[in-house]
């Protein structure tokens, strides 16, 4: 099939692509976006999460045919080492990163959660990040980082 996608605000067109190709393989192997990880390949661990039109999607069980014409966001599109996004800074500040393998997925969840509702509570964040596994942090610093970002967004909104 012919495929057009927008990844981190950049347009990509493929003249001929296997519609069953997994989104994760397209992103990693064809576009070199390696922040999208492979952990289980059956949709249980969540480390392959990307935002498709703003909504978390597990790219290891999503065929590219499902994302034709859509906007995809990964952490590379959120910020850079020179200019990290506030959420990325909160992840550093709150020590929400240990091995870093689940980190890109967790950050994207955080971005989605706060965009949806900056008044989100810690308890709600806890439930909402549950689709992504983390073996290192016990999740607590991740929840704190996302909450701090939500408070930051609220403060900015009130100004």
């Amino acid at each position: 099939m012919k495929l057009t996608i927008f990844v981190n605000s950049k347009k990509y067109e493929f003249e001929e692509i296997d519609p069953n190709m997994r989104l994760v393989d397209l992103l990693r192997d064809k576009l070199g976006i390696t922040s999208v990880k492979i952990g289980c390949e059956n949709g249980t661990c969540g480390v392959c999460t990307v935002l498709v039109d703003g909504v978390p999607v597990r790219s290891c069980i999503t065929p590219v045919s499902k994302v034709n014409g859509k906007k995809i966001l990964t952490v590379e599109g959120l910020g850079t080492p020179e200019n990290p996004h506030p959420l990325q800074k909160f992840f550093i500040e709150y020590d929400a990163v240990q091995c870093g393998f689940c980190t890109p997925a967790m950050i994207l969840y955080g971005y989605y959660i706060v965009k949806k509702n900056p008044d989100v509570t810690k308890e709600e964040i806890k439930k909402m990040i549950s689709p992504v596994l983390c073996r290192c942090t016990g999740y607590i610093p991740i929840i704190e980082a996302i909450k701090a970002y939500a408070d930051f967004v609220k403060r900015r909104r009130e100004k």
Partner: protein
Amino acid sequence: MSKVIVKEKERVLNVVGHPVNRVDALAKVTGTAKFTADYYVPNMLYAVVKHADIPHGYIKKIDTSEAEKVEGVVKIATGKDIPGVKKVGFPIPDEEVIVQEKVRYIGDVVAIVAAETLEAARKAAEKIKVEYDPLPVVLDPEEAMKEDAPKIHDSGNIITHFKIRKGDVEKGFKEADYVIEREYRTQFIEHSYLEPVAALAIPVGDMIEIYGTVQNPHNARRITSLTLGIPMHKVRVIQPALGGSFGGKDDTANFVAARAALMAKLTGRPVKMVYTREQDMRESYKRHPYIMRYKVGFTKDGRITAMEIKVITNAGAYSSSSPLVLYRSTVQCTGTYEVPNIKGDFYTVYTNTVFSGAMRGFGAPQINFAVESLMDEIAEILGMDPVEIRLKNAYKEGSVTPTGQVLKGHVVSIRDIIKKLAEIADWKKKREEYSKDKGDVRRGIGISCAFRGVSLGAEGADYAGAIVEVFEDGHISITSGISEMGQGAKTVMSQTAAEVLGVPIEYVTFVGPDTSFSPDSGPTVASRGTLMGCGAVKVAAEVVKERMAKYAAKLFNTTYENIVFENGYVYSKKNPENKISFPELAKKCYLDRVNLSAVGWFLAPEIHWDPETGEGEPYFTYTYYADIAEVEVNVKTGDVKVKKVYAMHDPGKVVNPKTAKGQVYGGVAMGIGYALKEEYKIDGKGYPITLNFDKYQIVRAHEMPDVEVYFLENPDPSGPFGAKSLGEPAFDTVAPAITNAIAHATGVRVRSLPATKDKILKLLKEKEERR
């Protein structure tokens, strides 16, 4: 939340002891950190393994003819293609990178395919046909110990038998008012690092460069060098970002590195090998299941007089770290309690299950589960409070351990920890109040505590090295063989260099580990990374500092003892106004040909342990800790919710309160999984059932309780800045605090982990029937 309790006023530190941000976090949050599977190089091949089809049998024939016909296949290798040593492994070389004659479990590798595409390699691997002469399978370690059991290795099935003989148990039991016998069991646990094992091997002339998911790059180098039959300087192992390990990326990950290297050598092309989760869980080693039988004598007032212990651990198909894991269980067999009379026999045994090896805790968590359950059972018999029974028997300065070691030279802080934590958790009040719960949902509170021998102890050669180099612009590069796997090793080592040289941490970058220039530092295991790694960096940084101080002394017309390094400046105590910036001084040093590069070498104190008598000093110092857990149990459904965990640790000195707290949170999460849900299951014939996260379930965010972390600092004379261990203690004793809380809530005791709702319901039903 977390809090560091500092006992005494100590020397003011500027970087160490401060909540510094993780030095590798920026790369990880922006997606610029590269993990092994993220490397793609031109012309690379993809390699896939073919695993054994049966758990035990001789290989009669390997037919690769159909596989070779798959388009894109470049090379299929079997054991015959290994040019070097066929059997590897430490301490007993019984493991094979590719099995040649006999398969011993379902995760043995019998062949490897390298192909132009991953699809072709996978397809070809499926078409490899292996004919076997099947052998009888033995899965139960007690069956395997019998004389007539099928022999898994020629040496017999009992790998190691350690003994403890202290005092006179018969006399001890005579002194007791009560003697009880209990059996406890634990399960196989999968490390569940989220990044599956992988390697990329690149041939460069007569060298092989490897990027691998290896916890211990120097071990990967050794295994690859042996397998390929080439010297170590021709193998360069680079550790990229590592997606978790927890002890799990040693043996198996090293074999994956060696296999990729073998295929690269055979094809002359770069070879990438990335395991699927199923392949990883099938092949990689696990935490040992234990059978633990304790006969205990105690007096009416709660004093333990004797313990007779028999422990059998399932090593599975290969020995791996089993003797070393058993060592720790042996020398810590009574937990953190002084027992005057002990007779202990400890066995680790081959079976045809997946093999067992190193995992966070390393033989301590199993023993802690038994001993800490036992303490509560004794308290219940005597009608004593669990805190009280612990204080009655817990170690103090001068106590004698099972091996005859006298605890001294460091603060034996366990009693202090138990008392403080019980107070913080409001133990007495909650214990009483929760006991009155009568509804379907009942609350419980449980305590558990432990001690732990720091670092490798007498089980290994305990050394570490580091290089510190100050550049001409005053910025600093450091490296060590101590590796980063998420625990924060790079950060604490960077803090150490910054502290010694009096510069902000931003001046320091940790590079490596890379086996071609990072000094071999022994493995990053046994909660020794901070102790040994920071120790080595400190030595190296002090050497460089002294050279710079001597040079600065000339500038300031004084002696080098008067030179102070602080906040990026260097000055003489005599005249602090007259200062030079650290970068300026570095530049001057270079212009005057001063060597600003040094290797630091750090040795643990010498100790000795006799495996025959079980006597000696197994570790040079110990760390102490406790957990208190609160649970809610639904007695109708068996559901357990962990509501709160309080943890207190004495890691000597907290080098980084921010990352230290993270270690404890992660340890608590893993401990909840160990207590309540995780179990790697193998069916009755030796085939694994739980090969991915849908069946092997680890703790998710919504299951995490509120956690309060406390650090009680008692700086240890043997560690840099007084620091010792934390990584394993964070996990070691969480599970029994939870099972003790469940027993408090329900009145029933689960003696085999995990405490699933089915087990709890069954026990509740039995209790009901007894009424």
